[in-house]
């Protein structure tokens, strides 16, 4: 950052101007498809199928962020370990998988894991969507480890001493002083990561998971009409936008609210 | 302060009945002013009386709602767009309270950027002139330094050199010593004193009363968006009947004295 006073000269384009325009585009796209009534009707017929696909995107994204957060929290703690033997492997994992393309990891987990696992003589199926979830959870865990490490390290040790001086116990300090600050620092990047993973779920279509993009391709191949192809892919774009944009805006608001100095 | 009589010199700046408001706040309520070629005119008065705004009207950084401003042959109040005001600004230098140097450019680059990029002066010629100006403000050894490495007084002298680089007809000084440490005020005032003695046309907004008295051809006292008194330094500082001016000058007097001692 520039170490100078900030003046906001250009009035920020608030959601009040952006949303109507975006809404306008979406509506225009829909209207355009209504000019071909047949195409709009076909789109309506395919909507439940597309919605099932999108539910898969949401399922994968939630599972991946949950798994990634759990593993990332542990990795972040390991990264802060005073023992090099514990710290080093965690650092290597984080470095490699933070730099790894999501698509490559999804391919990797899909091809490496078997399609079923044998547990105590039971054949448990191992569906592709779970493999894709793991493929997305791996880079997520690496990112979360970095977020956690950064947040903990950003709290000055002097605060522990100051709290102790005021009569706080160690657990009280953690509860009332340290954790609230960590959460403030962790929440915005965590939400950004969630948005990024949600968008990453579209990659699962390339390994045959029947999510929204895959469903759109199915629909477009089945219908075989140009106007419908245009409409169905625009629908995919709009649905993802409608899901991810509020998350992004909410994150921006959080960042602004937490940016108290 | 050239030898010729003041009344014989041509009028360079003329403001008539200038009114300006920022939103609901009336800042200027009818300013009349005349500056002749070679004049040094000082504007004094309490903060918030509109002194700096008068300067910004002259080079078109702000636009008054009413009244006329002419600089030479240019009717400033008739310039409608930013693009139309650019030729005017090339003729007028301004030095700001906070120096406002470009922090990413070296001292020399700060001075040559306007002649090279705007006037199309060749680089060798612009650099030659810049070095001449740096010698004049006694900063020849700092041409490769960056603004962040200089003291306030040094930065302000660079800013003066930058303003002079365009060979302006008029230079506006906007409280150029207000942000400086007392020790560095003297070096900046010394530079301005020399420029004025060499015949530079200038308008100065200042709190340095002694300095204003010493160098000015005319002093204006502003209060509440009006010029309440004007005259020669002697008449304004010593023979004024206005009690507000007395209390203003005496109120600043002690501070001005300690600063002057740094000269």
């Amino acid at each position, binding site marked *: *950052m*520039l170490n*100078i*006073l*900030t*003046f906001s*000269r*250009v009035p920020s*384009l608030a959601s009040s*101007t*952006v949303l109507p325009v*975006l809404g306008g*585009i979406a509506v225009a796209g829909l209207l355009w498809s209504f000019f071909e009534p047949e195409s709009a009707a076909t789109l309506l017929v395919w909507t439940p199928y597309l919605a099932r696909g999108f539910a898969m995107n949401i399922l994968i994204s939630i599972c991946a962020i949950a798994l990634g957060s759990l593993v990332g929290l542990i990795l972040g703690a390991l990264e802060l370990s005073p023992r090099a033997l514990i710290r080093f492997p965690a650092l290597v994992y984080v*470095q*490699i*998988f933070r*730099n*790894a*393309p999501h*698509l*490559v990891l999804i*391919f*990797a987990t899909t091809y*490496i894991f078997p399609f079923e696992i044998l547990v105590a003589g039971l054949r448990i199926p191992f569906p592709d969507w779970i493999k894709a979830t793991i493929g997305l959870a791996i880079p997520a865990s690496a990112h979360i480890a970095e977020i956690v490490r950064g947040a903990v390290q950003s709290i000055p040790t002097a605060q522990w001493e100051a709290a102790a001086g005021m009569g706080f116990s160690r657990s009280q300090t953690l509860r009332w002083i340290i954790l609230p600050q960590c959460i403030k620092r962790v929440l915005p990047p965590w939400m950004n990561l969630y948005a990024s993973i949600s*968008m990453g779920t*579209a*990659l699962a279509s390339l390994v045959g998971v029947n999510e929204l*993009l895959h469903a759109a*391709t199915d629909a477009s191949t089945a219908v075989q009409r*140009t106007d419908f*192809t*245009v409409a169905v*892919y*625009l629908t995919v*774009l709009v649905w*993802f*936008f409608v899901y*991810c944009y509020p998350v*992004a805006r909410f994150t921006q608001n959080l960042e602004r609210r937490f940016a108290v100095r | 302060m050239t030898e010729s009589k003041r009344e014989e010199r041509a009028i360079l700046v003329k403001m008539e009945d200038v009114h300006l408001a920022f939103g609901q706040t009336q800042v200027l309520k009818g300013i009349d002013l005349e500056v002749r070629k070679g004049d040094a005119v000082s504007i004094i008065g309490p903060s918030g009386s509109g002194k700096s705004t008068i300067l910004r009207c002259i080079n078109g*950084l702000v636009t008054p709602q009413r009244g006329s401003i002419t600089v030479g042959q240019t009717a400033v109040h008739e310039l409608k767009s*930013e*693009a139309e005001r*650019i030729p005017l*600004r090339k003729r*007028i230098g*301004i030095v*700001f309270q*906070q120096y*406002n140097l*470009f*922090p*990413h450019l070296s001292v020399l680059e700060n001075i040559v*950027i*306007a002649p090279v*990029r*705007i006037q199309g002066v060749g680089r060798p010629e612009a650099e030659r002139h810049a070095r001449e100006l740096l010698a004049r403000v006694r900063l020849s050894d700092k041409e490769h330094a*960056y*603004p*962040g*490495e200089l003291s306030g007084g040094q930065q302000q002298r660079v800013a003066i050199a930058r303003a002079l680089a365009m060979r302006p007809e008029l230079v506006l000084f906007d409280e150029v010593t207000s942000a400086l440490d007392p020790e560095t005020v003297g070096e900046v005032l010394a530079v301005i004193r020399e420029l004025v003695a060499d015949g530079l046309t200038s308008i100065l907004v200042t709190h340095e009363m002694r300095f204003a008295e010493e160098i000015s051809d005319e002093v204006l006292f502003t209060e509440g968006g009006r010029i309440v008194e004007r005259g020669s330094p002697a008449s304004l500082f010593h023979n004024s009947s206005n009690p507000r001016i007395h209390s203003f000058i005496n109120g600043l007097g002690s501070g001005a004295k300690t600063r002057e001692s740094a000269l």
Partner: protein
Amino acid sequence: MLDSILAGFVTYTKSLGFNFGFLTSVYERTIWIDGISMTLILIAVTIPVSLVGGGLLAAALTSGRKYLSVPARVFVELTRNTPTLVQLMCAFLVVNMLISKALGGAQYNPFSPFFWVVAVVGLHIAAFHAEALRAGIESVPSATLEAARAIGFNRLQILWFVEFPLALRAALPAIVNNLVNLAKLTTVGSAIAVGEVTYASIMIWSQRDNVIELMIVILLLFSLINLLIARTGRWLENKLKVPGLGI
């Protein structure tokens, strides 16, 4: 010579339990090396596209003119909040198809899959650059801008000589981070058969079942590329560092 070194490498790694046998087949080796070069070419071509696009978008966002800033804002929000792969599919399957139709057949369409990957990934990252640059431009103090106006700079000169140089220094860390993401995103090219390293690797491992081996190589490749980008960024940061300017 090369063959014997490769054979030695293959035998050695085999003793460690890895199957790098494809390296001894000239055909597969060529596919794979072409894939790596294609990845490098894609990254090298897309980076300048993203930087130019980001600069233009940032200029539009901060222009203060609605007819420029609103479309730029819509584009930035749209591209930042939708998956790159979906954008690529919309570009390749929809826009490209419409262009082909308008020109009377795919054989007359001058746009290749390579073009679409560069355009989509480049503009996607450009939107992120634009946000970083916009923040930098908006943090230039108004007093500095007033000085620039007083000198006689017009709007574009202020942008080019004052705002961009200052914003670039403030935004550089974010831009480098975006370029790391850009390198990773070029892998979506495999979805429309651009023969970059992921695509080449899929072709090989579907024949030989050596996913783990190729995966290790891909991960190392991207770690290396991103290390290079980060290093270059840090070098540039130092080079652009101005004494006394607190960034």
